């Protein structure tokens, strides 16, 4: 590739202002002697100047307010989600611990004579009570938000 061809390849980027000082010097030196490259550089400069002055899409009226409102809405939803996750976690731990406590208590008071059917009934009742409490708490929160 000749110097002329090599410089010509760089003219668009020179007009875009992204070449290093050495490359710019090289182009300037060549353009002083080469009318075709000088004209080409001017053409590219017209394009890049035009690109810096494009018609601007105006930001819509109220963009800032709508964005702030959406951020607030998302933050509230995220906080609710975190709260619900914490609550469910706490209820799961509570359910597990109360089952364990119930098992220890029954074992101590009956001397371990409770039969399988009684165990099943008692633990089912305990699970339903825990799930019912969770549904009640979460349902009341949702109802408050809805109202």
């Amino acid at each position: 590739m000749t110097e002329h061809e090599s410089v010509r390849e760089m003219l668009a980027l020179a007009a875009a202002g992204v070449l290093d000082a050495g490359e710019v010097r090289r182009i300037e030196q060549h353009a002083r002697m080469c009318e075709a490259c000088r004209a080409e550089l001017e053409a590219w400069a017209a394009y890049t100047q035009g690109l810096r002055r494009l018609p601007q899409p105006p930001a819509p009226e109220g963009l800032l307010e709508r964005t702030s409102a959406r951020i607030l809405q998302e933050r509230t939803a995220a906080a609710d989600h975190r709260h619900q996750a914490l609550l469910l976690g706490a209820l799961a731990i509570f359910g597990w611990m109360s089952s364990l406590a119930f098992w220890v208590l029954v074992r101590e008071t009956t001397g371990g004579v409770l039969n399988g059917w009684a165990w099943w009934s008692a633990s089912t009742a305990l699970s339903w009570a825990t799930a019912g409490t969770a549904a009640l708490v979460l349902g009341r929160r949702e109802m408050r938000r809805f109202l």
Partner: protein
Amino acid sequence: MLAATMSLEAFGTDREIALLKKRDPDAVSALVGRYQHRLYRFLVRMVQEPAAAEDLFQQTWIRLLEKIGSYDTRRNFEAWLFAIARNLAIDHLRRRRDLSLDETDDSGLAASERLRSGGPNVLDRLLDFERGEILAAAIAQLPVIHREALTLRFEEEMKLEQIAEVAGIPLSTVKSRLHRALESLRTKIEGNV
């Protein structure tokens, strides 16, 4: 003087980031306000639909606040912000029409056709060029990666390093992408004259 101004701006940004990490509502509003025109313009250039650009603008700030806790203050804040916006815009374009990033976009054709038929004489064409309408219509037809390179360089006035950070590509790729974008733009415009 310029250095002093830049350091003041950097200080302001650092302070704002600290407040952002605390989710300070005033700091969030101030930052959204500061970048609203530039970020919205960038998103309009990327997706070319004002309604989608607004939605992506809002999503960008929500995503930024989700990630601000892990933001490294040594990184360039603007590049980070625009990278978030850019990734959301690319995801949107992919979902919308299963678009390959280097495919030519046809959404600017209508404007280009209008310009071609609407300005029959040379003076009208020159005035359109002066107003940037021909350029804007031609840019709208370029592939999204070329539109991105042009808007980041010439409207956001980012350096190659910042563009590389926004687009997540090597510096050499930014350079060649910018070169190809300029060549394609010129071919489109001179092909229409």
